[in-house]
């Protein structure tokens, strides 16, 4: 099989879907000749033309609402938001319109749109371009929330998101863009709501999302050298959440560490931890559940401070050891 980067996998999923389905089109800022802020749509305007690779003015409120309107009337728009931080400007359309329409209309109409957007820190872009705000979206009924960590997952999940008849927020982590994995050439779908066991283990379960999946795997490799067997689970989608896979894993290992880059306070890790606490897996727990997340601080510019604001491999290693020392 060929290797693709995560970025190429996202592009390939969109291109193949667009060849297959005339209703799919992309809109966003600088997605034409510029190829998007991160280069995801590079080359697409040459193939699909400006009608379907629609360069928009800088107006997140208008373009998100336009996507909602187009979706409601038969198109399948993919909206590229340059940075997930700018969700604040698209928020009304995503939260009060896209998420609510079907329910408010008593099951009439549907809003099949995908809002793709790069999230996360690590590029030195500082506080207004580095946030991880996925918990906001996961809190809103009516939206689905996807967070792929690998190229393979990105392609399959994006295909599933485009096929969805509901609004989907598709978070791409900036530091994942250059990571590679084997990706089949044909178009395939990974169902939303299906977690992936990225590594099997028996002593501790780590549930990690986005870039933290890679850090958790690194931590697991280090811990293995010390005789500790770690299972790493990537939920891949927060909404719907595959609680079953996580519960089964915790029943097996008896220990759970949840890790995400987003600020720990009010983060999605709390949701996963309480889901386990409420489930039958609670009786299997040998130690308290641990949550690792970003510190409650805006992401600083200085690279050392930036790194220290979010969990690192060593923090994950330490958390695993701590849970092993608690009974």
């Amino acid at each position, binding site marked *: 099989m060929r290797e693709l980067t995560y970025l190429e996998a996202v592009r390939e999923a969109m291109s193949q879907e667009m060849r297959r389905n005339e209703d799919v089109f992309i809109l966003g*800022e*600088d997605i034409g000749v*510029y190829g998007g802020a991160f280069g995801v749509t590079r080359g697409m305007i040459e193939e699909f033309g400006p009608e379907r690779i629609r360069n928009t003015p*800088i107006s997140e409120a208008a373009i998100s609402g336009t996507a909602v309107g187009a979706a409601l009337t038969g198109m399948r728009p993919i909206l590229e938001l340059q940075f997930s931080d700018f969700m604040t400007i698209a928020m009304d359309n995503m939260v009060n319109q896209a998420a609510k329409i079907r329910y408010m209309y008593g099951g009439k109409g549907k809003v099949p749109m995908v809002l793709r957007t790069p999230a996360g820190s690590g590029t030195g*872009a500082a506080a207004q371009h580095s946030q991880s705000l996925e918990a906001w979206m996961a809190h809103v009924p009516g939206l689905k929330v996807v967070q792929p960590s690998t190229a393979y997952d990105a392609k399959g999940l994006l295909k599933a998101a485009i096929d969805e008849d509901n609004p989907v927020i598709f978070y791409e982590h900036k530091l994942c863009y250059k990571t590679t994995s084997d990706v089949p050439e044909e178009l395939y779908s990974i169902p939303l709501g299906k977690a992936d066991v990225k590594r099997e283990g028996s002593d501790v379960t780590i549930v990690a999302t986005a870039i933290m999946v890679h850090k958790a795997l690194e931590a697991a490799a280090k811990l293995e050298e010390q005789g500790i067997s770690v299972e790493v689970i990537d939920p891949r989608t927060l909404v719907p959440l595959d609680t079953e896979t996580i519960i089964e894993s915790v029943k097996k290992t008896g220990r759970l560490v949840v890790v995400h880059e987003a600020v720990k306070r009010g983060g999605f890790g709390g949701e996963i931890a309480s889901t386990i606490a409420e489930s039958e897996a609670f009786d299997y727990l040998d130690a308290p559940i641990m949550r690792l997340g970003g510190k409650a*601080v*805006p992401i600083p*510019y200085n690279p050392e*401070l930036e790194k220290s604001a979010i969990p690192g491999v060593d923090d994950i290693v330490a958390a695993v050891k701590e849970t092993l020392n608690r009974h």
Partner: protein
Amino acid sequence: MTQLINIPAQLKKTDLTHLLKQMWQIRFFEEKVDEFFAKGMIHGTTHLAVGQEASAVGSIAVLQERDKITSTHRGHGHCIAKGAEVNRMMAELFGRTTGYCKGKGGSMHIADVDKGNLGANGIVGGGFAIATGAALTSQMKNEGYVVLCFFGDGASNEGSFHEALNLASIWKLPVVFVCENNQYGMSGPAKEMMNVEDVAKRAVAYGVPGKVVDGNDVFDVMNGVGEAVERARNGEGPSIIEAKTYRWKGHSKSDAKKYRTREEEQEWRAKDPIARLRDALIGEGLLTEESAAEIKAAAKKEIEDSVEFSKASPMPTIEDLMEDIYA
């Protein structure tokens, strides 16, 4: 051949050389930043305004010290023109504690609230309402200061532009909206992103004056902004001044500039605002070649010194991470 500009009779020689010095400081600061980015010595992202020096310097030259500004993601020039110390600016880009934001903000967030610089902004359109609010304070507390709100052509397509203008207009607030129209919003040509030729024409919709000036002629900028500032100070409300100019460099460091031609770039380089001012001063006998060279060398040295200052400054420590989240 550079294009000629006319020098207003009422300006004193000291004012004139000050303008030239500031423009050179901005140019050298940005070229140094560009160089260090290329070498990987500065991280993150930055947006240079090389070629746009006259709009920043000309606009701020007509302000009093107590007046305030809001700036943009392309804000180094505004910052220097409003009296910032280049040492502390450069230190910020180096992520040092002596920087304006103690190394936490970086290029896009430099502010000097005490001196009336209410901040650069990573959010396009983020400054419109902040400037309007600062003008509201001036009106409510009868403080007599005026606020200059810098923005780009692209930003004028954000809803915040229209909403802030409407509010400023109905409340007759002392704010002047200065559009630096450098022809592009990232890769989006202004002429494709709005259906009016001039951003200034949008003033009609809000019942305020709108005027286009030559953004590469520091005196034309001073005239236009000067009138608008007087109007604002007299309680007659806001205006839009649109300075037509050009950014010589790419949008940010990774820009292949595929959206414009090299011929167009050359055309604008011939309108270099700094060369135009220097030639005019020498042509009128207000400055000798030698003293022009001295001013230039002094500006260059200040920037070189700022690099030394920055390199010698301490990095923030982990203890600094959680400082300054709350007042």
